[in-house]
Structures are given as C-alpha cells and as structure tokens.
C-alpha cells in the first residue's frame, strides 16, 4: 500500500495502533496525517509532505476539479472535442471527428472557437459525474498533442 510507505513504519503506537492500521484509517479518511506525532518531526518532513499530497482531495477539505486549457499552446486541432466521451455521447458529429453542431449541446464540454479550444461546462465531466473507473477519465489531457489541457484539483 502506497500510503504505508510514507509512514515512519516504527509501530511506536503513539497513534494508538500499528502503522499499517493507521495507513488503512488514513485511506478511509478516519484519521489525518497530523495524527501521527513522529511524522511531524523534521526528519520525516519529506514523507509528511508527500503524504499530504497523496491524500490531497481525499482529506477533509473539498477540492474542486479544474480543467485548464492553455490557449497559448492550443492550436484548435479538436482532438479533445472528439475524444471526450461525454461529447461523443451527446454530439453525434464528433463520432466522425467533425465539429459538434452549433449552438452547443448542454452536456458538451469542449468546443473550438476562433481557432482555440474553449471549455464550456465542467459539470458533466466524467470526473464529477461518473462512477468507478470511468471517474478516472483523463483522455483529454493524455492525447492533446500540444499538452495544453491540464486536469487539476484546487
């Protein structure tokens, strides 16, 4: 388990359990990284930070999905428009690589306007809507030839 790797692994039981049990609780959000006192010591600083990063969105504070399109890099190739599964489902022309109809369908996530990609509506992105593995969709980011799409949580 990845989280376990970053714990002190000393089983000092200051948290009231073993490191492994602590890691499991961390995963389920029952405890926070700060609940492990040794982890706050300077020598574990790096591990502590990595853990914080890993836990990111799962930890208490709600993180919000952002999909940023860098319009300086984008050249409007339309790959994101075509490959986004939500677009494919609601905009039939995009099945054959064509630009979706205008005006955009209400679920449509991307469109190309004035030679640049434009994010229309994030609400229906699979990262928000879908369940299970589909929720891990990141094809728009993966296949953009200009590396202009970035999925982030802020």
């Amino acid at each position, binding site marked *: 388990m990845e989280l376990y790797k970053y714990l002190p692994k000393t089983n000092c039981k200051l948290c009231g359990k073993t490191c492994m049990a602590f890691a499991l609780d961390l995963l389920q959000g029952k405890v926070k990284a700060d609940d492990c006192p040794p982890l706050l010591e300077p020598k574990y600083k790096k591990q502590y930070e990595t853990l914080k990063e890993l836990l990111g969105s799962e930890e208490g504070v709600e993180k919000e999905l952002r999909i940023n399109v860098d319009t300086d890099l*984008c*050249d*409007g*190739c*339309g*790959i994101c428009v075509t*490959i986004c599964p939500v677009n494919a489902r609601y905009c039939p022309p995009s099945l054959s690589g064509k630009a979706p109809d205008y005006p955009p369908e209400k679920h449509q996530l991307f469109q190309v306007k004035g*030679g640049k990609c434009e994010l229309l509506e994030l609400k229906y992105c699979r990262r928000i809507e879908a369940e299970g593995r589909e929720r891990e969709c990141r094809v728009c980011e*993966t*296949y953009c030839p200009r590396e202009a799409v970035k999925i982030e949580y802020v």
Partner: protein
Amino acid sequence: MKRSVCSGCSLLCDDIMVKSDGIYIDEVFGACLKGKEKFDQVTSQNRILSPLIRKDDTLQKASWDEALQRTVDLIKKSKKPLIYGLSNSSCEAQLKGIELAKLINGFIDSNASICQGKVLDNAVNSGITLTTITEIINKADLILLWGSNAAESIPRLLNKVLFSRGKFRMTGREIKTLIIIDPVKTASFNTMGVRDVALRITPGKDIELIKVLKEECCAADSIPSEGVAGLDKDDMKRLLQHLSGAEYGVIFVGQGLLTPQKNSNLINELLELVQMINIKQERGRITLAMMGGHFNMNGFDHVALSMYGKRGNLHFKDNQILETDENIISKIENEDFDCSIFIGTDPISHFPMSLSSKLAKKPIILIDNRNSATLQLASIVLPTTITGIECSGLAYRLDHIPIELKKIINPPSKIPTDEEILNQIIQKLKSDGGN
C-alpha cells in the same frame, strides 16, 4: 450562422460554422488555428487591394486598366513564359491558367509538382489504391505517419482519422494503432498511446529502412542485428508485424518523403514495399494517402488529366501540347524562361536561393492577395480574392475528393477572382491580336 468549408489546408474541413454579416466575418467555430488565420487574411495587414506596377524601380499603385495593359504587353514580348502556382486557386481558375498557357505557348505547373511529383502516377501504375478520409474514419485500424508532422501541417487530420469512432471502429482511439516514423519528435508524438510505435529514424535514412524491410518481406531474419537507420531490430520487426497484420492500414506519406531527393527513388521503393506487404497480407491491405499543403494541391492534376490526359505540368508549343520531362525546377535551373506569372504562391521565399536568384532576374507578374517576397520583386501585381471566402469554386481534397467551396462575404474593393483575372488577360490578348 452558415456552414462552410475551410480552405486553410488540403483537408478542406466542411464542418466549419461561420458567423458573418456578409461584409465581415465575426466568429468561426470548428476551424483550427491555421484555418482561423486563413479567415483572418480577409482583413490582414498583409492584404493587397490595389494593382501595383513597377515604375522607376518602385512599386506604385495603378489602375486596373493600366496594370492589365502592362501585363498583356509583357506577355506578348515573352517567348518562353512560365506559369506557376495555382494550388491556392479553384479548379475553375486552374482551367483558365491552362487556357492561358496554351494561348501564349507557355509552360504551366502547379505547386504540387515539387512535392507530390509523379507519386500518384506511379502508385496508380503499380496498382496501389489511394484511400479516402471517409474510408479511413470508418475502417482503418492502423495509421502510419511517415515523415509527416500531421499535427503541424494539417492540424485536424489526426482528430479525424485517429480519434474518430467510425462505423466499424466504434471504440475509436483504443482500437487504432498509430506508428510514427520521423527523425524529430513532433507534436504528433504526443497523441501516442501505450501500444503505439514511435520510430525515431536517422535523417535521410528512410531509403535504407525501406530496403531492409523489403528484404525481410522476401526472407525472414534478414534484418541486421545491429539494426539500420538508427532503429533497432525489434522495432523494425514490430513495424512489419503491424503492417502485415492490419485489416486496413494507411500510410500517410509526408513532406519528409515527398521532397525530391537526388539519385534516390524513395517513393518507388516505398510503393514496392507496400505491394510486397499486400501480397503477404492475410486479413486486409495497406493503402496510401498523400499529405498536401495548399488547399487545392490536387486540383491541377485533375484539371490537366481531364484536359490533356496527363497529370502534372503542361508544356505548349504552337498551341499544342508538347511531351516533356521537364519540371518547374529544371526550367528555372536551365533559365529556360523569359518571364514568369505566379498565381497565389511565393516562390522567391520558398525556393532555394539558387533558384530564386534566377527567377528574380526575369520580369515577374504576380496574381495574389497578400504581400510576399515575390511581390517585392514583381513587375506587376494584380490583387485577387481569397478563394473559399470571397469567391466560390471547386477544389480537390488531399484524398482527391472534389469539394465545393462557398463564397461567404464580398471581396473588398470589388477585387476580381483568379479566374476573372486570367480570363481578362486571355480576352485582352485575343482582342489585341499578335502572339
């Protein structure tokens, strides 16, 4: 909001939505940046709106009548005129260009000849079919980009051929294999998935790769263990496996392969390789598609074929067609011309120095809509409309499918089209007699 065709490159995307009041273009949806830039040309700083003629060694504004008269006078004096360009013009204009060449006993050639040359002829002769975009979308399971930076030259090509979900390829990207053979890591490499094959070939060694693959087709295990052309043996084996295992494979032949190379018959070798693979093929076949640049790159071949039964350049003498092996390059190299007419092209910047310096020595008549290095050296400049935006016309897509371009807005200052300008020159030459 009107549906329209983009004439930004030879893909001629027909899914563009344009918002316009008939005078200006307000918004363009669906076109890539390159296409958008084409639409922007209408109001660009670079646009020329008035005829120009060279007086006292500077270009000065002139009236249409004066510029046309000068053009005709110059053509009449010329014994060996050269007409070149026309790949950014409609087929109608190309037809007029050929008519003019015949009338003035000139040599006419389009931009296509320096990149595609005889590829099409040779492919057809060896029985290899060229495929169409629609077929690729619906059937292809293997896309090979060879020496072509698709993401750069035809920005929406990969979107259409690789990411679309065609009739028999419903799952889209996952079911298609992408192979790229290129010396540099282009933006197209970013569209690769885990199962795809990236081959970084040593520049200029494509011919060696083809030869070894051909040998391997004849007798297995003839690939040298150290590999060739900077590629290792396993990669080459995988490449060949993919090619011979594909149900419907397409090789996109790019500029890297099309640029004529001295002493090497790269394209013919490639065609032979494709033939050999197709014989080995168990399930399907490999087809070719050519990556053109200018939007009507293929049109001239079709017009010439329908008029005179041959593709490529035409040479006229005594108003008859002359069989010749010459092309635009050899014509310029041998300085076998005394005046040139360029239509929608900028050879002074595109040709190598050795050729452009020769062009610059003879009078140039330029028919174009924007400022360029060629314009700076021209004797006469006739401004023209932007085909596909300010006038309609026929063009052939990169897969040789005819597409009708539509007029969206009126040209500024009542500028005539390429076709009209060429026609005016023809009529004036005829009515003035002589030649």
